[in-house]
């Protein structure tokens, strides 16, 4: 029984570490702010959540397990808000999108709004 729990915990642990690693590789490889946010905030979120889940499974309903679950839930609640705010601030302060980008309907709509106001 304990070995089964250990194996499941280790699987989640490995998956989490793998996703954190992929997130960091993405941070270095992808071009602009927005694409890097994809890699770091999301994949790293899943990675950290995986690690927390592994801790919770291994530690069970002890002090450490409960804390790990809480950290994981708060991470899932706050990470998207942070990503959204960084992306919005970047766009508003005029961070250029990568040259290979296909569309920017946000910029188009903003321009249209300014024109209609003047």
């Amino acid at each position, binding site marked *: 029984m304990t070995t089964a729990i250990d194996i499941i915990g280790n699987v989640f642990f490995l998956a989490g570490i793998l996703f954190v690693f992929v997130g960091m590789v993405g941070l270095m490889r992808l071009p602009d702010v927005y*694409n890097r946010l994809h890699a770091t*905030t999301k994949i790293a979120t899943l990675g950290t959540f995986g690690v927390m889940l592994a801790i919770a499974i291994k530690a069970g309903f002890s002090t450490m397990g409960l804390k790990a679950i809480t950290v994981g839930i708060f991470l899932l609640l706050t990470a998207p*808000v942070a990503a*959204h705010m960084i992306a919005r601030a970047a766009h508003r302060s005029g961070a250029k999108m*990568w040259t290979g980008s*296909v569309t*920017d309907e946000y910029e188009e709509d903003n321009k249209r709004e300014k024109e209609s106001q003047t």
Partner: protein
Amino acid sequence: MRQYIAYALALGIVWCFVSGEASILNFMVGSVLGILIIWSLRKLYQPDEEVPYKNILARIPKIATFFAILTIEITKASILIAKIVLWPKLDIKPGIIAVPIRATKDVSITAIANTISLTPGTITIDVSDDLTKIYVHSIDASDPEALKVSIRDKLEKYVLEAFE
């Protein structure tokens, strides 16, 4: 007032989790702290607007399906992004797309925006002033129509069922 107490008790449970000790005394300490926190932040939400508890209880199964779908979507999309990142040749077509949404309530718009941000490959950038569109940055914007349909059918449907 009733909502104050409900929020305070919820914060009390969170306190138990964070301090890692589930006892009645600890729960009471957390609830008292919760009342202080909610009292000091009361201007941020309208406690006058009473939400019937029955509605919340009836929605729990739908909210549970929503979170199950969310987990599956996050895992699927994470694997997709991992593939893009680890592929030797960087093959991405990023772009910002305006996605029309049907939700009207603040709660559901927030839920949709956060869900989109949480799903790897897409980030919410802004909501239009009239709350009819959200701007989404996608790592693969080569087919905007497909993205709109996938957000509408896969994510928004469940958000609407759970929160509207």
